[in-house]
Structure formats: structure tokens, C-alpha cells
């Protein structure tokens, strides 16, 4: 008990919220309820709240008891939490426009359901049913869940998180379950997979969070408290309530804060143990034995993060040859040169390197997560670049492989094809830059360079195929974004279906590869002849290829041929979109007295000579 108090006393000396949210260990795990309250109060007196977060809870077991833990993790994430607990039960009324949930306007709705809510038969162990019955139950569950959630989706905005409480008792067949041909765990696992697939394909902005994963992390005894379950229908131990709240508020942080996009890594004592400049390539710890095996695992974990859609970069004070030698030749190095989208290996101060990395990658510093073992480097970055999230690599090698697991902003809410190919896309961009340099050195102009890329643009109009990507573009794009309006998947779907809107997006491919969907424009038709451009944006990674001009001119031509005679547009300045401040000026729009841009399309003619050297195809679906 003495020890516990000291632990809290130490936490109460932390001076900033960042220090709490950037802890690499699961320090919060053993916090008691009164301590969680003290800490939450302490954290909230340190700094002002950054955002309000509105949480809705639909529950078929007691959920109010989660409140202190939700408030605790909200404090850590800098969120002022407003929680609404719907009346007990899986109540369809809550999906209606006069419901408490609707009025609460939740940013996120957490569904806390039990297995019986999915299907009454699940109140009993599944070993009581035969194969045919099980298949029927499976199918009925999927249909039933999809029905209910789509009713909620119709009226309730924000993100949905579905959870299903694991069975209070372990599998009916006990130890033999894993061996049984009708294993309960196996059936349950396949059901969960089907639920997740259904959600992914039919319910926008929704995700299934698997509580079995949490059960496995904590252990059954640390997860369920049967005393409170049987007396108050509250299933969780304080540790489990704490963990569930943490996971929920991590998602809240991902929704409310700028997206993290890059993990910038120090090399010595982060990617490997020891200092390559002193210990030599054969002297660093990296390989099958301790402590080298912890670094190998950490590198594999970084590859996982890359698969989540984060790109990797190196920022190290070293001789470039030494680091390159390890990347190219060390037999146990997992991450090779091609895994890193950019590198800064030199002796310059790291904040300076981070700034130039941001420029090279065309990304804002607020999308950076910087990982370094040195107190000095971490403090420099913290003090000089407050936008950057700084994570200090733990001193104990065994803690290194999992050191990024607690970082909320490294969680993701969706995974598009573009996310998974991101590293490759940045690699292609480097090849383009090299080609451009070569051509410029040979006295060619920009148009010749662009023509040599053999670009093809594919424009989709009102297609429902990639709604999650389109919503993601509005949420993530900051620099090449004329109005910076953020839209959810449901809103995008609404625009696509509405006659008053035209939703156009494009993908681009060239000699070096396919960019994925990188541009989006939303046109709002005020009447048959007047249209306004509600949003016009493009991913940074295709900047510099005149794709924006091709896209805009093509769309103006499309509108003109659909009898639109005038287009209004706005440039809404933010501190990040200076890049496009003269975009409309450069595209023959006139700035009117009311501050809006306008372009007359009544005599619009497509000028083929001025059109960028891009072959455009399009398909329309409305």
C-alpha cells in the first residue's frame, strides 16, 4: 500500500497533460477509483480542456458505473466529456429523432450489449444446439444486428462502437472446448468476424471492438466481478472498467485530434540497442538473443504500424554511412531503406530535421509522432515543436516492443487501400522528384516533365464505391483544401444520393504507379443554373502535377454541359491552407464584393492547349 501511494504521489507531480498521455507503460492499470478521481482533478487543473466530447451509451447492463473511469481517461486526453446513458435496454426508440440520444448529438455512441441481446438462444451454451440450428442462429444474429444498427444510423450522427460482453462463464466444454468439433470459442470467433464484416460493409462510421481481446489481456478474474454482476448487473472489475474507458477515450482522441501520419524514429537505442558509431555494425544489439530480440520485435511492430497506414521516417544523429550500413547489411535488421519514406541522418539539431522532414513529406508537424530514447532530444522537440507528439523509448529493453501500444493517436478507425499503400506512394513520389531533377538539369520545362509522367486521371461522379475514403479525405486534408469542411461517411452518402449535390473524386496514375483516390470536390446546386463549390481538396502527395487544374477544368466543363451557367466558390483561410489562397484567382474566378469567388460558365469552352498533359476519363453514376 505504501508503494501504491508513492506511485500516485509521483504521478501527481507530472506537470502537463502530455506527460500523462505520452507514458509508454500501462501505469494507469493499478490506479484505484479514488486515485483516478484525484488524478483527473489534478490533470484538469494543469491545463484547460481542448475539446468537448459527447458520448452516448446504449446498454443492456449497468453502464453508469463506468463514469468515473470515463472521466479519468477523458482528463488524460484533454477532453471535456459529456456522457449520456440511454435508458436501460436495447431500445429502438433511442434511434428516433425525439430520443435522448438524438438530442445528445453524440460524437460517439458506445453499444454495450450482451450475447443474449443478439439472439435469445445465446442465453444458453451453444453446445445445446445442432449444426443447422447454429447456422440459423448465426444468420439471424447478423440480420438482426444490421437492422438495429442501420435504424440508429439513419438518425444518429457520429461514430458507432459496438461491443458484446463475453460470456460470464468459460466455454461449456471447459478445457476440451478447443479440441471439440463444435468448439464454442471457434463458433463465437467466426460469428464475430461476420459481425465485423457486416458492419464494415453496411453501417458507415462504425466499428466492432472485441471485448474478448480485453478479456485476454486482463484475464477472466481481472475482467469480471461476479459479485457486482449478480447484485447490480455490472460485469466489470475496476481494472476492466478502467481499460474499457481507456479504449473508448483513445478512440475519442483519434476522432478529435489531428491525425497522426508519421512515426519518426531515432536509430541508436530505439531501432537497435547501443550506438552504431561507437559499437560498430557488429556490436549493436539486434538479433535473436536478449536484448537484441526486443529490438527485432519492436521493428516488426513498426511494420504493423506501417500496415495501419502510418509512414516511417528516421531522424538520427549519426554518420549517414553507419546507419545506411545497418539498413542495408545487418542480417537481423527488419526495416530496410525502402520502409522509410524519408531519412535525416546527420548532426543537425533534431527539431530542425523534423521541420525539414515535414517539408519533404508535405505533412504538418502535428501529424508527427517522434520516438527517441534521449531525454535531451525529447525535451528539445517538446519545447521547440509543441505540435509534435514525443514518445521516449523506455530504458528497459523488455518494455520497448510494446512502447507505442498506449498511444491513442496510433489507433485507427478505418483502413482504406490508400492507407495500406502509403509507404509505396511516398517512394514513388521520390522517384518522380528525381526524374524532375534530371529533366530540369537537361533544360526541360515543367510541361515536358509532366508529359513524361504519362498521367491518367480517373474521375468518379456520384459513386458510392469509396465513401470511407472520401470522408477520410475531408477529415485529413489540411493544406490543399479550400474550405476545410469535415464530413462523415453518412454525410458524404447523403450528398451522393441527393439531387442537389454532385460528388466528384479522382484517382491518378502515372509511370511510377497508382496514387489511389486523392482528390474530391463537392458541388452544391442552388438551382438549375447556379452551383457553388462547397469543398475542393486534394491530397498533398499529388501536389505539383497540375492534377488540381485538370480536375477543376474538367468538372467546370461537366457542369457547363449540364446547363450550369455560374459557379460560386470560397477560399476559407485556416493557418494551414495558405498554399491554395490564390487557387481560384489562378483559375479565372473573379473575387466579388461579398468576398466570394464567381465564374461565369455561360460561354465556357475547354481550351485543349492549356489543359494539363493528363488523360482524363470519367464515369457518372447518378
Amino acid at each position, binding site marked *: 500500500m505504501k508503494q501504491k501511494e508513492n506511485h500516485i504521489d509521483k504521478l501527481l507531480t507530472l506537470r502537463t497533460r502530455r506527460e500523462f498521455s505520452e507514458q509508454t507503460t500501462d501505469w494507469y492499470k493499478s490506479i484505484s477509483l479514488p486515485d483516478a478521481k484525484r488524478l483527473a482533478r489534478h490533470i484538469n487543473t494543469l491545463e484547460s480542456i481542448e475539446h468537448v466530447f459527447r458520448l452516448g451509451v446504449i446498454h443492456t447492463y449497468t453502464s453508469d*458505473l463506468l463514469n468515473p473511469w470515463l472521466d479519468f481517461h477523458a482528463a488524460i486526453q484533454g477532453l471535456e466529456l459529456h456522457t449520456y446513458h440511454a435508458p436501460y435496454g436495447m431500445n429502438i426508440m433511442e434511434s428516433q429523432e425525439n430520443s435522448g440520444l438524438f438530442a445528445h448529438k453524440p460524437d460517439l455512441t458506445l453499444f454495450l450489449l450482451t450475447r443474449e441481446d443478439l439472439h435469445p438462444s445465446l442465453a444458453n451454451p451453444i453446445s445445446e444446439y445442432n449444426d443447422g440450428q447454429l447456422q440459423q442462429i448465426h444468420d439471424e444474429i447478423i440480420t438482426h444486428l444490421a437492422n438495429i444498427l442501420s435504424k440508429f444510423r439513419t438518425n444518429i450522427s457520429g461514430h458507432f462502437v459496438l461491443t458484446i460482453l463475453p460470456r460470464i462463464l468459460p466455454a461449456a466444454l471447459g478445457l476440451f472446448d478447443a479440441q471439440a468439433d463444435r468448439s464454442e470459442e471457434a463458433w463465437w470467433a467466426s460469428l464475430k468476424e461476420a459481425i465485423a464484416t457486416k458492419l464494415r460493409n453496411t453501417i458507415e462510421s462504425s466499428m466492432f471492438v472485441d471485448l474478448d481481446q480485453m478479456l485476454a489481456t486482463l484475464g477472466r478474474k481481472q475482467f469480471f466481478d461476479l459479485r457486482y454482476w449478480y447484485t447490480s448487473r455490472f460485469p466489470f472489475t475496476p481494472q476492466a472498467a478502467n481499460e474499457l474507458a481507456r479504449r473508448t477515450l483513445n478512440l475519442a482522441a483519434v476522432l478529435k485530434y489531428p491525425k497522426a501520419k508519421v512515426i519518426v524514429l531515432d536509430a541508436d537505442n530505439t531501432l537497435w540497442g547501443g550506438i552504431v558509431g561507437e559499437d560498430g555494425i557488429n556490436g549493436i544489439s539486434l538479433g535473436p538473443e536478449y536484448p537484441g530480440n526486443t529490438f527485432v520485435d519492436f521493428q516488426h511492430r513498426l511494420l504493423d504500424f506501417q500496415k495501419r497506414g502510418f509512414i516511417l521516417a528516421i531522424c538520427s544523429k549519426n554518420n549517414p554511412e553507419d546507419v545506411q550500413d545497418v539498413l542495408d547489411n545487418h542480417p537481423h535488421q527488419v526495416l530496410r531503406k525502402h520502409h522509410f519514406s524519408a531519412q535525416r541522418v546527420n548532426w543537425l539539431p533534431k527539431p530542425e530535421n523534423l521541420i525539414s522532414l515535414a517539408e519533404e513529406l508535405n505533412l504538418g508537424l502535428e501529424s508527427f509522432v517522434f520516438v527517441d530514447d534521449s531525454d535531451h532530444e525529447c525535451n528539445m522537440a517538446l519545447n521547440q515543436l509543441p505540435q509534435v507528439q514525443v514518445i521516449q523509448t523506455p530504458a528497459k529493453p523488455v518494455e520497448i516492443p510494446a512502447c507505442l501500444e498506449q498511444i491513442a493517436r496510433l489507433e485507427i478507425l478505418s483502413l482504406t487501400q490508400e492507407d495500406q499503400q502509403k509507404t509505396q506512394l511516398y517512394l514513388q513520389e521520390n522517384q518522380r522528384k528525381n526524374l524532375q531533377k534530371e529533366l530540369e538539369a537537361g533544360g526541360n520545362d515543367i510541361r515536358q516533365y509532366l508529359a513524361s509522367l504519362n498521367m491518367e486521371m480517373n474521375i468518379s461522379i456520384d459513386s458510392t464505391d469509396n465513401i470511407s475514403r472520401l470522408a477520410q479525405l475531408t477529415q485529413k486534408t489540411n493544406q490543399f483544401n479550400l474550405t476545410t469542411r469535415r464530413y462523415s461517411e453518412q454525410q458524404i452518402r447523403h450528398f451522393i444520393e441527393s439531387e442537389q449535390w454532385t460528388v466528384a473524386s479522382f484517382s491518378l496514375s502515372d509511370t511510377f504507379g497508382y496514387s489511389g483516390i486523392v482528390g474530391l470536390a463537392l458541388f452544391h446546386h442552388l438551382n438549375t443554373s447556379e452551383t457553388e463549390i462547397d469543398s475542393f481538396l486534394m491530397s498533398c502527395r499529388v501536389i505539383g502535377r497540375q492534377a488540381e487544374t485538370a480536375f477543376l477544368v474538367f468538372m467546370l466543363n461537366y457542369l457547363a454541359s449540364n446547363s450550369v451557367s455560374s459557379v460560386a466558390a470560397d477560399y476559407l483561410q485556416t493557418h494551414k491552407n495558405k498554399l491554395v489562397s490564390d487557387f481560384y484567382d489562378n483559375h479565372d474566378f473573379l473575387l466579388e464584393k461579398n468576398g466570394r469567388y464567381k465564374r461565369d460558365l455561360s460561354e465556357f469552352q475547354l481550351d485543349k492547349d492549356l489543359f494539363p498533359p493528363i488523360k482524363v476519363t470519367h464515369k457518372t453514376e447518378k
Partner: protein
Amino acid sequence: MNTQDQVMQTIAETLNVPLSTINKDSAAENMDIWDSFAQVNLMMALEQTFDITLEVEDLMKLNSVTSITDFIERNS
């Protein structure tokens, strides 16, 4: 700090009320905020703070400063 003070402090923290509003006679029956939810939260807080394990039968009975203090002194 004696057990009773520690109990009163834990109650104040858990119910989100100033310590000054809690005295040795405080109990669920004379505090509106000490409802059944608060009771469950309080039991969890007591278990964690005093490192004790409560039986189901104790959960609802321990609803005053006196009964809680007595229980902890008897069981630790």
C-alpha cells in the same frame, strides 16, 4: 491518519463531495448523493484503498461511516 479519517476521505473522493461535508454520522440514509450507484463505486473504492475483499452480503450493509470503519478495523 486513523481508519475513520481514511474512510471519510475515501467517501468524499468517491462521491465527489468536499471532505468537510462528511462526518462520523454520515450514511447513505442521510446523504442524497449516496445512492445505489454510489454504493457500488464506494465498495470498489474501499476494496482498492484498504486492500480488502468484501463478500456480497457486506456490499449493501456497509452504508455508513461507522459500519465501514468498524468493518475495516475488524478485518485488517
